């Protein structure tokens, strides 16, 4: 599964696409300290948090893609930071649970 495939699977909108990296697993969570400490590298991070700090955490944790769920839109600073850093970020109308289930079913975890 790569970022473009996940985007299609979740009927998501691309906000920024950098490198079309592989996705090995997923992580759901909105507290940034949890995500930073526990999100596996190369994962899809499902969240409804949409401020600029999401980019910093995603970069530190080396996630493959940030998936903004529930149709949450990123604030301007987050979009700008993702573009600067080449960070993948997409948004989907699905809930974190529904999006994670779809990924899990697709990659068999």
């Amino acid at each position, binding site marked *: 599964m790569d970022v473009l495939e996940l985007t299609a699977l979740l009927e998501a909108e691309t906000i920024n696409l950098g490198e079309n990296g592989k996705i090995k697993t997923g992580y759901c969570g*909105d*507290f*940034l*300290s*949890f995500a*930073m*400490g526990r999100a596996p*590298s190369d994962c899809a991070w499902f969240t409804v*948090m949409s*401020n*600029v*700090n*999401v980019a*910093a*955490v995603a*970069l*530190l*944790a*080396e996630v493959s893609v940030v998936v903004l769920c529930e149709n949450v839109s990123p604030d301007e*600073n987050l979009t700008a930071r993702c573009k600067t850093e080449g960070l993948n970020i997409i948004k989907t109308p699905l809930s974190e649970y529904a999006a994670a289930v779809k990924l899990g079913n697709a990659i068999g975890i």
Partner: protein
Amino acid sequence: MSEECIRLEFNVDRGNFASAGSASEAVKTQLKLLGINSKDVRRVAVAMYEGEINMVIHADGGTAVVEIYHDRVEIVLADNGPGIADIDLAMKEGYSTAPDEIRSLGFGAGMGLPNMKKNTDEMRVESVVGTGTTIYMTVKLG
């Protein structure tokens, strides 16, 4: 003869969430350039980022000094903030004094200091209420 190291210094601004993480990103980049394994790079970056965020939230900013040796990274985070009254309590997962507006940004889960402890091999907190806090962390490499 003193041991060779690469020394990096950063100022962390109070209340500036947009720039929080810039010091840890810079250190991460430097460690990667040095060929440090990605697990250790992440440990250093997470510990530093949590420290940066703490200084942004709780203190009037502060300074971060990072020394990279061949076998370890030493980090000293110093601020002139309010200090920590009960360090043992502050080290507990889930304990936080962050206000609601900070929680709405996704911080204040009470994971900051525990994450720093978890990602370092040695950590020492010195704090005086009303004066400030200094945190010494060491991450062994390899």
